[in-house]
C-alpha cells in the first residue's frame, strides 16, 4: 500500500459525526435566535457575583497546584501511552517485554515517590 492509494474510509463516519454534531449545536442556537427575546441592559449583562457588584477582574493568578497537577498528569499520561502498544503486543514480546516495562515503571515510580514525599500530591 502506498500513501497515494490508501483510503481511510472507516473514518468517514467519524468525519460525518463531527460535522453533524457541530451542525446540530449551531442549529439549536440559530433556531432559538428566531424565537427568543433580546432585552439586554447593563445590569443584566453584569457578571453574577451573589448579588453584589462584581469587583476586580476574575482572571486572577491561580494556585500553582493546578499547574503541578497538569505536569504530573502529563508525565503519567505519556507513561500510559507507552503502555497501550505494550499491552497489545504483550503476547508476542513475552518475558523480555515484561522486564522492560517493569524497569520503565520503576524509574517513573522513583519520581512518584519523590513527588509524594515532597508533598506535591497534597492539596491544602
Amino acid at each position, binding site marked *: 500500500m502506498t500513501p497515494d492509494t490508501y483510503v481511510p474510509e472507516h473514518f468517514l463516519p467519524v468525519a460525518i459525526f463531527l460535522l453533524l454534531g457541530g451542525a446540530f449545536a449551531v442549529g439549536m442556537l440559530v433556531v432559538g435566535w428566531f424565537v427568543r427575546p433580546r432585552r439586554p441592559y447593563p445590569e443584566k449583562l453584569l457578571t453574577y457575583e451573589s448579588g453584589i457588584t462584581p469587583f476586580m477582574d476574575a*482572571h486572577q493568578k491561580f494556585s500553582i497546584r*493546578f499547574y503541578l497537577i497538569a505536569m504530573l498528569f502529563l508525565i503519567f499520561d505519556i507513561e500510559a501511552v507507552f503502555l497501550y502498544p505494550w499491552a497489545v503486543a504483550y503476547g508476542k514480546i513475552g518475558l523480555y*517485554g515484561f522486564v522492560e516495562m517493569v524497569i520503565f515503571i520503576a524509574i517513573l515510580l522513583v519520581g512518584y515517590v519523590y*513527588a509524594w514525599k515532597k508533598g506535591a500530591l497534597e492539596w491544602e
Partner: protein
Amino acid sequence: MLLKGIFLYFAAVILLSAVLMITRRNPVHSVVYMLLLFFHIAGVFVLLNAEFLAAVQLIVYAGAILILYLFVVMLLNVDKEKLGSRAHRFWPWMAGFGILIAGEVVLLLLRGSFPVNPELSVQQTGAGAEALGIALYTRYLIPFEIASVILLVGLVGAVMLAKKTIKE
C-alpha cells in the same frame, strides 16, 4: 484526487491555524488555534494509515501538553499581556532564526531522500499499535528506557519549581 483534496484541506488548515496561533494577542485564543492544529495533524496521521499515532497525537498533545499550556497561560495575567508591546526587543534575532530553520527544512526537502524501512513502515503493517509495540520493545529498547529517565527529570523538575514557589 479526492485524497489529495482531503490532504490539501488538512495542510491548509494546519498552516492557517499555525499562523493564527502565533499572531493572536490573547494567548488563550492562541491555545484554541493550537487545538485546531493538533486535530488536523491527527487527520493527516489517519490519512497515512497511522490510526494509533492519530489517537496518541490527540491524547498526548491535545489532551495533556496543551492542557498544561492552557493552565500556564491562564495563570498569567492575560489582560496585561494584551496591553504590552507585541514586539519583543530581540524580534529581529528571532525572525532570523526562524527563517534559517525554515530554509534548512526546505533545503532538506529539496535535496534529501527519506529512506523508509519497509519492515517498520506503518503503511505496510497496517494496524499500528501491535507493530509499534513489537518494534519499540525489541529493537528500540534503549531509546524507550531513556524516555522514562527524561520523564523522570520532568517530574522532579516540576515538583522542585512548584515547591519553591509554594514555600515563598
